[in-house]
């Protein structure tokens, strides 16, 4: 079985990745996932094994339909797998019931969606506190105010989502994802609906939360410049991991994509 992490190149930057890769926050082993049956069957994941180190920012890239979202959903306990297992923070989630999975998502996972998905009836602050409220727990006020300050949302707390710009909404969604200090934050195309400036703000925050707070983040993206914010990029094609790139830059990502575009026919499209 090919190890998904290639030997780390020696450089000054490496410390950031290597030290924290010692413990895996999320580990997938031999994941298979197929939809439909018979002739119409689509195999979205073929024997995917990958580990995401604690405190690391990983981007998942690949052409449309390559299985990025499916992988993320399986990792997050939102989708079931046909074969293989997923481990989050030491808990094997494969085969858990709905109740246990719900609790796991509530306590150990944060989500950032492409469509922001804020509750329109709640204020920004209430949206940030939503996961804690659902759990019936009290959020750590010091931590919450730190996130809010970092995201520069102090002035917006009492606003309803409809009164916020897209970038502001996504920043609220980021704060919500981090509010419970989850084991891992999954973000599916978090900048897909944002302009360049807002994208930058969100990505810088994600980067910062990894650097400053040791947050683990797994982000699906189409955008090479977004991927460049990550510590590592995992490339998917046809339900399989085809490349694993450390310390990416926008250029190296584009190069890599070109590289396997030649091998795998692609419906190359932008987000």
């Amino acid at each position, binding site marked *: 079985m090919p190890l998904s992490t290639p030997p780390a190149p020696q450089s000054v930057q490496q410390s950031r990745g290597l030290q924290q890769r010692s413990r895996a926050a999320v580990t997938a082993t031999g994941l298979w996932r197929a939809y439909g049956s018979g002739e119409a069957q689509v195999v979205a994941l073929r024997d995917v094994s990958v580990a995401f180190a604690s405190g690391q920012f990983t981007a998942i890239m690949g052409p449309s339909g390559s299985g990025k*979202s499916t992988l993320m*959903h399986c990792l*997050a306990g*939102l*989708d079931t797998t046909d074969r293989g297992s997923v481990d989050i923070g030491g808990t094997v989630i494969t085969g858990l019931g*709905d*109740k246990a999975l*719900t*609790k796991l*998502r*509530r*306590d150990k*996972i*944060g*989500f950032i*969606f*492409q*469509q922001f*998905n804020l*509750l*329109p*009836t*709640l204020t920004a602050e209430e949206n940030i506190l*939503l*996961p804690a*409220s*659902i*759990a*019936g727990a009290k959020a750590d006020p010091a931590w919450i105010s730190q996130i809010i300050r970092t995201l520069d949302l102090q002035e917006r707390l009492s606003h309803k989502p*409809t009164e916020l710009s897209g970038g502001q909404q996504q920043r609220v969604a980021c704060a*919500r994802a981090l509010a419970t200090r989850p084991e891992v934050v999954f973000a599916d195309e978090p900048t897909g609906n944002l302009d360049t400036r807002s994208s930058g703000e969100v990505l810088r925050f994600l980067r910062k939360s990894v650097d400053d707070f040791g947050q683990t983040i797994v982000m699906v993206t189409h955008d090479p410049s977004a991927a460049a914010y990550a510590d590592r990029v995992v490339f998917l094609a046809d339900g399989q991991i085809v490349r694993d790139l450390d310390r990416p830059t926008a250029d190296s990502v584009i190069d890599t994509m070109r590289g396997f575009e030649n091998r795998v026919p692609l419906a190359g499209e932008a987000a």
Partner: protein
Amino acid sequence: MFRAALKGMAARKARLALTSLAVVLGSAFIAAALVLTASIQATVDELNAESFAGSDVLVQPVAPESRGDSLVQQGVSAETLAAVEGTAGVERVGITVAGAINAIGDNGKVVGGLSPTMAANWADEAHDRELREGRGPEGDGEVAVSAKFADDAGLGLGESVTAYSQTTGQTAYEIVGVYGYPGGRDSLGGATEIAFTTAEAQRLVFDGDDAYSALAVHAADGTDADDLAAALEPVVGSESQVRTWEDYNAEATAQSAELTGLVGNFLLGFGLIAVFVSVFLIANTFSIVIAGRLKEIATMRAIGAGRSQVVRSILAEALILGAIAAVVGTAVGIAGGAGLTAAIANSFLDAGQVSLAVPVSAVIAALAVGIGVTVLAALVPAVRASKVPPVEAMRAAVKADRPITVITVVGTIVTLAGGAAMALGLTHNLGGDKAALAGTAVGAGLVFVGVTMLTAWLSKPLVGALGRLWSWNFAGKLGRRNAARNPRRTAVTASALMIGVTLVTATATLLTSVKASIEDYFGEAVKAELFVTGPAVSELPASFDPAVMDDIRAIDDVDAAVEIYYDIADIDGTEQYVNTTTDFGGIIDLFSGEFAEGGTGELADDEIAVNQSAADQLGVGIGDAVAAEFTRGTEAHEFTVAAILVDNENTDGWYVAPVYADEFYTVKPMMALVDVSDGADIDAVTAAVDDALAGEPEVSAQNHEAFVAEVTVFFDFAIIAIQLLLGLAMIVAVIGVVNTLILSVLERTRELGMLRAIGMTRGQTVRMVIVESVTIALFGAVLGIAVGLGLGWALQNALADSGVDVFAVPTALIAGYLAAAVLVGLLAAIAPATRAAKTNILGAIAYE
């Protein structure tokens, strides 16, 4: 167009089915009301036609001029009978002697209660009687009784029954026969009957005069009924009236039509309310359906469909829905009407067989209303949909709710106008009591409509406030916010319940206030703790032997006991209500009466007392003379007015010395008041007085509570009856809430998916939807209760001068309505909550 509409409908089966249920109910009630009215009418007509069947002309006494209780029965005299029999063209004359009597059952009390037993002569031709046991009466000491009487009295063949009338003492008769009526019936419309010999019937009914209640004249062959009637007219003279059987029957039919019309109108009212409420529901459903199809409509418009085509396609859908629902409703209504007719005919009317009538008008009305209402209700959303510009609808984004300014402004104006009308009516600024009452009623109606329009505006603060109930729970908090999210939709949904609850609360409040006013009145105005009376409503006045009064006075803890005699006398040429008693001062005291002028002492034989307004009516004062002739009196007596009483409903009327009781129509006292010592055990005294009344079949002792309960029993029935209305409103409300919630859940799929993704449990999701549902239902109920209480209060105030001077809140019922609202919310939440809990997270959040 129709095919497209059908296809669209198939995709929304469940919601449309739910919605159409409201139309079905409306159509069904209308059809049922009309079928019931027609069928009962037909059944009653058939019964009426049996009366005097076979005779051609009827001779009956001229109905006596209304004298309150129509005291003395007039009959057709024996001379008239002889003259009729002697008229050419008369073949035979059947004689009927009939009147109300009292008969005592095996429990020692009068049989029948509210309706008295009828006496008839066995030879009577008014009805066919079929002997079931024994034979007809042959001697004056023998009777045959109807099966219903035997049943009610607990008496049978060979046993003895005691009967008496106003003019006779109690007489024992031997039951020699038990009979029924054609068609196996036990009674005529539920009445009990005893058949005597003609002579004995005359003794009971006409005080022994040789007189008759009716002559059934059979014409000789070849004689026309009209000609015979005309010929009999001069023979009979002014004493009696002559009618052909046809005319008689037509009159009876017209009379019963009035009554059945009343029942029918009641049901029609229910139907119209159901229809009214369903307009909201249908409009809401179509708005919802259209909202879900904006894209589709926009596409149609973009590829060239005109506005009118959009409207037409939606109306086509409404037409199909309305037609199906109306047909089903009409069928259900006809079946229900038939069933109800059978039930009523068999219980109340004891009709034996039922004639079912389905008038074409019933079918047309039910269909037209069902279809019309549906199409009309769909019109507004359809026109609105057609106005949506194609581009706008193509956008996926959820648009903000349309502003509710217009309807709020109009609603405020209507509410204020209604309030003003009510205020004018209540402050008697409209000139005339009728105008005041009408003003108040119209104002109340306007307020009702106005507030209905204001529901959307009211929903924000009210739903928020109600929602605080659930704030302890996060899922509840979300549910509350969701309920407040779309004021327009919440309002329309809640209106269904609000309308029903308003109507029942207003009615229940008014009836409760009437009841409380009566209770209050008795508690305050009447010092006596016990009454000795017969049934509150009876055709025959109950009376008793005054000798029992001494026994009652002898009972421990009885401070005073006074009996009262009543008569309607002729005083100075006017009909007046006259009382007498052996203790004039006592009775005035026990009824809390007051003297305006004159002494409180007992009245001398030539003295009379009267209340102020009656004295004013005749223009007499203290010392003036009046002439009074009592019902059984043969001459007028001269009296001097000795005392004037302050007006007081309980003591109003004229008072004379007890010596005149013998000239009263009822020579025995009809009521007594018993004053019990303070602190005594009222129940024990009641029982002791009842013992003293053991030999008096017509009356019993009742304390305030029992008396008031009996007087107000009608209100209890009325209150129960209007709760049926609430039941109907609840069914419709459940449908409305389900509709709205399903739509909300569908609209919020992505939100639900997100919530589930970030850790909301299924249980929390279910709770969230339940709270939304219950909050909407409670909102409707609370609004309805508030408006209903307001309207009830206004009506009570408008009627305050008529004696409804206490405002009483039906607390238990209101608690019941709130509970019902919670139930509506819970029931309505079942399907949407299940759906929400099953939300497919991936499907909901995966958005490409």
